[in-house]
């Protein structure tokens, strides 16, 4: 559906409401994905799914009902069900009236060609990747995904918000007998996916990963490439910058606004409007999403808010709401670490002894109040001696505080990259060199 059709559908649903106030959220995903492994295409799938969430407010009571059926009887039924569910509740004193009309910035993250990429074209490009990998006697596994999403928020106070964005993701792991290499690219324009360069990068990493040497656990200087850095930010959004976590006393940055919490060379913002990001210019309340500086040269400057946390902390929303009401609070979805002035090559060349990490795997929180996390290295871990990569090292488990790590950054790369972290999330981050980073145990591969 195009923008006009989506808004008409939202208005149709609003028209069936008996509530004092009503909000409708529309979400559409059209995605196609080619998955390859063992140097052949193993899955090739496409989907078109859309749903509409109806939320009515009756006095201080509210309820949400979601449907994927857009015919009149279904829309009338969700409106009636929402009322039925809401009427059974106690009053919620924290419930806010819905906002009125808003003005939005444009995000310009939609590319029609990317949204309509064909399976034949994806297969053709995947073949240009697999060919050189097979020729080098290595094995590739990865994905090439293209598609688009559309989001709309409309309410009975005349608020109307609509945006759509496209996405192309290429990711590959190239494997040899005892080591692997990795390369990926995420962008809203498929034409930016340079298969040749990505293939060469993954091959180069794979070659360098062979014959890895064991390494004793302990503290090391590490150079984290963007894919690894993104894992450090995974838990900082929900715990560090979420205003509700601060209100509830469960944030490691609690009560520390305007205090230095990270190193002076670290500046973090939430920026949905960056050219490389895929952000939407409004949140799930329909409020304009702000570009927010969260950490300015190591000092905690701001949090992200929805309208409820903003009211509780007597400030303005930053436009980071999840669908309301929501027990999880506001969410920083487009975190970005400001780049520095050294190239990744210069950072390596200026390192006397350290470990270069391509990617982390399966990171998870260990202690939320210290923001300590654990995870494994993956797809290319190398020893650096006297400014050069000397050999691969076997994979290591790290257990480390993100706060400590981002307070010990000795170099920030100029290579900002949109990196997906394992199991969700995407962050704009540069290469970082971190001192005294703790590897807590080893593996034999």
């Amino acid at each position, binding site marked *: 559906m195009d923008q006009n059709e989506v808004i008409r559908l939202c208005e149709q649903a609003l028209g069936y409401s008996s509530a004092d106030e009503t909000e409708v959220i529309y979400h559409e995903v059209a995605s196609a994905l*080619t*998955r390859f*492994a*063992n140097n*052949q*295409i*193993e*899955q*090739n*799938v*496409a*989907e*078109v*799914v859309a*749903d509409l969430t109806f939320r009515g407010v009756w006095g201080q009571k509210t309820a*949400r*009902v979601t*449907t994927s*059926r857009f015919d009149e009887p279904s829309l009338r039924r969700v409106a009636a*069900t*929402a009322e039925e*569910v*809401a009427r*059974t*509740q*106690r009053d919620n*004193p924290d419930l806010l009236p819905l906002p009125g009309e808003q003005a939005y910035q444009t995000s310009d993250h939609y590319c029609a060609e990317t949204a309509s990429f*064909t*399976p*034949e074209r*994806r*297969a053709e490009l995947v073949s240009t990747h697999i060919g050189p990998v097979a020729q080098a006697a290595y*094995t590739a*596994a990865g*994905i090439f995904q293209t598609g688009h999403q559309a989001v709309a928020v409309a309410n009975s106070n005349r608020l109307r918000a609509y945006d759509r964005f496209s996405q192309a993701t290429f*990711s590959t*792991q190239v*494997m040899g007998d005892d080591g692997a290499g990795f390369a990926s690219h995420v962008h809203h324009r498929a034409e930016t996916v340079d298969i040749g360069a990505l293939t060469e990068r993954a091959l180069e990493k794979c070659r360098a990963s062979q014959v890895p040497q064991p390494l004793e656990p302990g503290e090391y200087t590490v150079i984290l490439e963007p894919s690894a850095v993104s894992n450090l930010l995974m838990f900082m959004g929900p715990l560090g910058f979420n205003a509700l976590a601060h209100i*509830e*006393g*469960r944030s490691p940055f609690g009560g520390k606004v305007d205090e230095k919490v990270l190193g002076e060379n670290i500046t973090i913002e939430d920026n949905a409007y960056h050219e490389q990001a895929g952000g939407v210019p409004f949140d799930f309340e329909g409020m304009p999403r702000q570009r927010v500086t969260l950490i300015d040269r190591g000092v905690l400057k701001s949090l992200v808010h929805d309208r409820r946390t903003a009211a509780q902390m007597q400030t303005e929303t930053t436009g980071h709401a999840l*669908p309301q*009401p929501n*027990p999880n609070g506001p969410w920083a979805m487009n975190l970005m670490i400001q780049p520095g002035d050294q190239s990744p090559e210069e950072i390596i060349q200026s390192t006397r002894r350290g470990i270069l990490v391509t990617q982390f*795997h*399966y*990171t*998870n*929180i*260990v*202690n939320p109040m210290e923001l300590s996390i*654990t*995870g*494994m290295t993956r797809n290319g871990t190398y020893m650096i001696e006297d400014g050069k990569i000397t050999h691969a090292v076997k994979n290591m*488990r790290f*257990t480390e505080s993100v706060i400590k790590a981002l307070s010990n950054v000795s170099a920030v790369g100029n290579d900002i990259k949109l990196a997906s972290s394992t199991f969700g999330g995407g962050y704009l981050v540069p290469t970082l060199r971190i001192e005294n980073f703790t590897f*807590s*145990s*080893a*593996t034999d591969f």
Partner: protein
Amino acid sequence: MRDLAELALDTAKSRGATYADIRIIEERHENINVKNGAVGSINESESIGFGVRVITNGSWGFSSSSHMTREEIERVAAEAVAIAQASSTMQREAVRLAPEPVYTERWQTPIMIDPFRVPISQKLDLLFAVDEILRGNPKIKVAMGTMSFRREKQLLATTEGTQIDQTLIRSGAGFSATAVEKGEMQRRSYPASFGGQYMTSGYELVEGMRLPDHAERIREEAAALLTAPALPSGKRDIILETSQLALQIHESVGHPTELDRVLGSEANYAGRSFATVDKLRDRFRYGSETVNIVSDCTMPGGLATFGFDDDGVRAQRFHIIKNGILSGYLTNRELAHVVEDPRSHGCNRADGFNRLPMIRQTNICLLPGEWEFDDLMADTEGGILFETNKSWSIDQLRLNFQFGCEVAWEIKGGRKGQMYKNPNYQGITPEFWATCDGICNEDSWQLWGIPNCGKGQPGQTAEVSHGASPTRFRNVEVGIGNA
């Protein structure tokens, strides 16, 4: 619906498919969250859609849509064939399916109380009763109670002639208390973390948990953890209670024995497996002789308890580990031949209509041993009892794992002694299972539901279960990162 299914299969065949199936899925969800004395959220949702899977030129193609019209069925079936044709340009070996009888059957989760017929007000009353008890200690800053219900109606029709109607019903509930004081935060959950217990069951599951009866203990344990010492670093004998052991089984036995993962299909995402096919042939020792682990989709209550998987294969029970030896993989019709199995083990499942079925974990259970729980505790003087998962992490080959729990106790005189906060333990999968030397009997055996198992690209969430009784492991590294 059957006429739409026939249309999809006819369209696929006429376009050149040598095999096709269609799954029409209708789902209903209800999720309720009560937090700090107020409704956190109440979400009702429903969806319907279909996915068409075809084999053309020896390759898979799949397409799906939520628009239930004849025109869309024809478009999607044709697109699935076109996708398969594109895939076949990069396929070395044609797909071949293990044989399975043709079925025309109906299957439904047996339930006593339909959870969707229980009034929301009754559910809220129960959660508010728990919430009030949890907030009885001022150190509790976040009291959270949840309920979750799901009904999935499936129609599977294949060009082989199978037609299966299934209705799966799942219920879940639980609560947690988060205590905060002086920059410290600790959480306790009941009956397990991340939403509690989930089973294929009706509302009788929620009633049987007697949630309010446990709220005071959980509240006070959360508050006590604020001042408890951290579990010191070192090597200790440990006993894992059943919900933590469920996740240990999930990560270190379930995922490594998914055959598609073993063969490299997941390499770019969740990783591969150390439990390679040669290890099945060579009778690899996965754990001590006392370790027996089965996959059982026929057992009552499991989240992977069904009549048939999404390949149309009837539910089965089989050994993954027998007397400590690797004995079988989770398989589907496409890959069973790789390990020379004449028939699929029936583990192919999809997350909704818009996802391609893939090998998923099932109900994977550690069979009970012979120890009474009290005897095992008495025999583990100075050991550590770990309870309730808090975090998990494991490498891409499923060897090096590290788990955190909400609480641990030193075992003194056969009882819980000193309480420890931030407990964790780390190990290497086969080395860890080799140290297993005490499994409690069926009196303390418990089945746990895990509704959020992630795998695949695009991502798919599967609901799985794991059963176990409290189990002892010797000389395990604990307290990583603690003093």
